[in-house]
């Protein structure tokens, strides 16, 4: 075995992940500003360009942005293979990716093909740099832990999602390229299941047992879950692709795949909730509340989806709210409250504990960087916004503006918490 590359480095530079984490709430804030500007009419058409602008500000600007930042941080720690030149790469990726997402959203929102073209030009190198760097690190990873294999599947899925997305965006932006709408379900499937869900699953394998002190996930489950999603996605894509070429009578086949994804994801949600209920660390914190909310919403989103499929109901906006905001964003938001205070403490400790005359006594603990009471306030806002959004869809659109105002307050507060954590870091360094 080659140990030469292995240093078990503690972490990359603190700015490497933090620039992504700090940007994420800003993109979500912008997404809701757009929604406010559009008004409740936006809910009537799921495929309007403005809806696409909103969706991509959220899925790329918040979800992917945070997960990219987390990967820059986690890969060296978990896989024992650092991303080469991660500090410079993260800076370039962040810049290109942020500009690309803004251009893409603006292109959709204002229906400007030129902006969409520009977004494609900027997003291609932005995503390519990140994908090549993480793929390189994952190929060279020393660990054979199930979560590393899951991350490989997540990154592979992001390659597919991004390629399909760029094809679709080119269809919108360029006259020469037809808009291949039959790729849209594949783009959504690979993005939501292969990228977002598998990435969350791979992180869950590590953080749920370790941070909440629970039993481990069963080996059989960790070995099978993500690869089953991958294989099912490949088969489903192949089926979908061929069914557009030759006519295959396929309602039942589609439903079969759907049911398979349903079972896989529900087993993950229920098993993780069971582990958390049996946790040894009884003291609950904000992160745990976010996880439990996230997993419950994943369960609800699957049930609503199942209901919609079987009874032929159009409930995609409700499913979208439950999946993206209820599940993925809850879990990411909860994780930020563990990762950011820890990084601040870790980097301050590295810099000050052995060099400063005040030593370690001046270094704030995680709870002093972001207080649990403060983060709980943001959790309640998040929950209230979620409930109001569901009410907007299921009861009355008169909740629309109220929901948006709470979401805006929620992301402003999250941004303030992250920003204050960075100020604390700078302040401690400045007064050493």
């Amino acid at each position: 075995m080659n140990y030469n590359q292995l240093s078990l480095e503690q972490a990359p530079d603190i700015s490497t992940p933090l620039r992504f984490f700090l940007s994420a709430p800003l993109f979500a804030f912008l997404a809701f500003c757009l929604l406010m500007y559009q008004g409740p009419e936006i809910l009537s058409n799921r495929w309007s360009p403005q809806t696409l602008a909103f969706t991509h500000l959220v899925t790329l600007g918040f979800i992917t942005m945070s997960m990219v930042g987390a990967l820059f941080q986690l890969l060296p720690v978990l896989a024992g293979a650092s991303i080469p030149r991660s500090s410079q790469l993260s800076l370039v990726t962040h810049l290109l990716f942020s500009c690309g997402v803004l251009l893409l959203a603006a292109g959709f929102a204002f229906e400007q093909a030129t902006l969409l073209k520009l977004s494609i030009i900027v997003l291609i190198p932005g995503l390519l740099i990140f994908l090549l760097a993480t793929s390189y690190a994952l190929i060279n990873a020393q660990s054979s832990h199930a979560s590393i294999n899951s991350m490989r599947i997540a990154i592979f899925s992001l390659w597919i999602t991004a390629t399909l997305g760029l094809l679709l965006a080119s269809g919108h932006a360029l006259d020469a390229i037809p808009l291949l709408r039959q790729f849209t379900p594949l783009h959504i499937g690979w993005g939501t299941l292969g990228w977002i869900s598998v990435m969350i699953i791979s992180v869950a394998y590590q953080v749920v047992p370790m941070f909440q002190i629970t039993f481990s996930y069963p080996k059989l489950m960790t070995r099978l879950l993500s690869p089953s999603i991958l294989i099912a996605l490949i088969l489903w894509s192949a089926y979908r692709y061929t069914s557009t070429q030759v006519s295959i009578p396929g309602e039942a086949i589609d439903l079969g795949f759907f049911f398979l994804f349903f079972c896989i994801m529900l087993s993950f949600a229920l098993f993780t909730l069971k582990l958390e209920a049996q946790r040894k660390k009884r003291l609950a914190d904000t992160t745990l509340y976010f996880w439990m909310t996230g997993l419950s919403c994943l369960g609800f989103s699957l049930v609503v989806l199942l209901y919609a499929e079987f009874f032929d109901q159009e409930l995609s906006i409700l499913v979208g709210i439950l999946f993206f905001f209820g599940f993925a964003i809850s879990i990411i938001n909860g994780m930020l409250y563990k990762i950011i205070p820890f990084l601040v403490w870790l980097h301050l400790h590295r810099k000050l504990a052995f060099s400063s005359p005040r030593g370690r006594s001046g270094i704030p603990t995680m709870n002093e960087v972001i207080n649990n009471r403060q983060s709980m306030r943001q959790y309640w806002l998040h929950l209230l916004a979620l409930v109001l959004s569901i009410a907007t869809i299921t009861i009355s659109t008169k909740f629309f503006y109220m929901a948006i105002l709470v979401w805006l307050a929620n992301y402003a507060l999250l941004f303030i918490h992250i920003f204050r954590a960075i100020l604390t870091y700078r302040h401690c360094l400045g007064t050493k």
Partner: protein
Amino acid sequence: MDSISHLMTDDHRRCDHLFAEAEQQVANKNWELAGKNAHAFNAAILHHFQHEESTLFPAFEKATGMQGGPTHMMRHEHEQMRQLLAELMDAIDAQNQDRYLGLSETLLIFMQQHNMKEEQILYPMIDQECAEDSEQLMAGLHSTPENSNAA
């Protein structure tokens, strides 16, 4: 036969449980039991570090000829955790709940990211490199302070 990986991973879990028990008692302000649990946790984890630093790491360094690699980083992290543990013991002796819970959360995350690296990367390497001496290398861990004296 058990592998070094298994044995050391089990010992991490044992320390985790002691950690959780102590934290719960501090949260309940049951200071007598909290003190007892926290000191048991402290003793268990220090014994674990000591076993690694005096037995496992030197064997790995000897087998691979690597001095400044992963074991160096692990020793450095042990030092950081020893500092946190010392502060944690001060907090328990002073019966300062906020200070203890602030420090214990920080220690838990630090300890777990350290454990991940050991369990997923370093221990499997030690298993591979030191297979011949594994029984001898494992023997030292069995005489834990828990076994000989319940703190």
